[in-house]
């Protein structure tokens, strides 16, 4: 038996949703997901309690790119001996460009891979809590609480303007 229940509330208005999110956060409840038909900064700001670790993965990719770009350039110059008049056999100045390009390339690739891994994508089925109305004109919030809190949280959501509140498995 689950020790928590998951409640899904549907909202028509953004202001109601934001007020409900603030109330839920004040009670320190776990908000699993908020669905919105359009991207919204205020929802994102409310949900951003902790920054995504994908930035560290991106940074690691960028640093690895710099090392790879520079090493590859040095290795190529050593192997093929591109001797140019007046320049050292392994010139460092132009390698900044290769390092920079690899930095961007690896950072982008690592970012995309990190994003896919952390969000567990691709998903080949919709979660049980997904309501197709959120792609039209509704907002939804998925929150978990203890069975004892169920009534109180349902009332709280309705008081903040929820159109309906459902228990999802």
């Amino acid at each position, binding site marked *: 038996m689950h020790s928590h229940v998951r409640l899904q509330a549907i909202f028509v208005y953004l202001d109601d949703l934001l007020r409900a999110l603030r109330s839920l956060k004040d009670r320190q409840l776990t908000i699993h997901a908020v669905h919105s038909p359009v991207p919204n900064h*205020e929802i994102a700001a409310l949900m951003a309690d902790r*920054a995504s670790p994908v930035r560290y993965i991106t940074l690691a990719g960028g640093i690895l790119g710099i090392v790879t770009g520079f090493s590859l350039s040095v290795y190529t110059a050593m192997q093929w001996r591109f001797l140019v008049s*007046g*320049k050292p056999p392994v010139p460092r*100045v*132009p390698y900044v460009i290769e390092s920079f390009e690899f930095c961007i390339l690896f950072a982008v690739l690592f970012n995309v891979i990190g994003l896919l891994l952390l969000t567990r994508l691709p998903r080949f089925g919709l979660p049980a809590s997904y309501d197709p109305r959120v792609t039209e004109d509704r907002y939804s919030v998925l929150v978990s609480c203890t069975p004892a809190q169920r009534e109180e949280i349902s009332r709280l959501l309705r008081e903040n303007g929820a159109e309906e509140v459902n228990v999802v498995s």
Partner: protein
Amino acid sequence: MSYPERERNAIIAVSRWPGRPGLLPLFVGLALAGAATFVSGVMGDNPLRAWQTYLINLVFWTGLAAGGVLFSAIQSITHAFWGRPLKRLAEAPGTFLLIAPLLFLVLYAGRSHIFPWINHPVAGKEGWLNAPFLFLRDGFSLLLLGAAALSLIWLSVRRECGQAVAQLPPAADTEGREEGVVVVFAQIYAILYALVLSLIAFDLVMSLSPRWYSTLFGAYYFIGSFYMGLAGLMLLACLAVRKEGMGRYIKALQFQNLGKLMLGFALLTGDFFFTQFLVIWYGNLPEETGFVILRSQFAPWRSLAWTVLAVCFILPFVALLSRRNKVRPWAMFILGSVILVGMWLEKFLLVVPSLWQGQGLPLGLSEVLISLGFFGVMALCITIFLGKFPLLPFADPLLRIEAEEQSTDGGLAR
């Protein structure tokens, strides 16, 4: 609909700059001390030292002032909402451009010390590099830039002149007409900014090594000037939020966006340096490499060159990556100050090695005092301007629309 009641009261509360009465005499004192040091330096044994410091400060503070006004112009051109509360602060250093042509004319007295091509004319360049023509074109250009900046500032402040917050007409009535005129002037200013600052860079900095040339040098200077303008604006924003109630308008969003712009222009300034450096390195032409080799390979300039790279590029790049740093006013105040000191040293590195023949770095008390004198003049311009005009451009239609839309949410949130 105009400002809601709550907004009106908040605006009236923050409409004046939080300056202390003792500051004006302090700034006047600094300006006079700088002027006295400069005059005694010019009359002393080594007038070159005073003149080169004067030139460094002229290009530094003129660039900073022009860069600040450019921020305001960009806000208007792009119809941006977020930076409206910062607009007046960005315009404040622009008043320095009113006296920049006069300060430039002072250089005429020291022209033979500063411009090596006066005593040793460069064959084939006499048509461009001659003192009367240089002072005429640069003086006229600075006047033109100053006039454009002051017109833009005037268009901005005149909306608040004689207007009470409560009696403003609805923003929608005035937005199109007034803002359209401001946008046209902002575009004119932005074009003049690029042209005039390029000319100043070529004439007042590049011509000090008259055989050296880099076609990108003008752009390098005006991009760097905008970077300085942003750093200066950050300092003013950090000071402004100390006033009670101003934090309602200059919020984390403004700090974060300004920090992002600073990061972008730290990268762009670094990029423009590297773009010139790479081409010079590859071409390996003696007339091009001499300028770079002197500054990057020989004492005492070499250590200074690395310091400038670290302070103007590496440190801001690392510090500004963090979102948390960008929204901490005290951290941004320190970083903005460090960037401005670094950019001053960068001007020093561009100017002095071309002129100075003595041993060691000519960087001592007289340089600090003359620079503090210029700082005093800039601080006076800012303090007088912000004391005379409201700190918040409350009649700006875009700020008002924002306030009207966000009035239920307790402030400007976009």
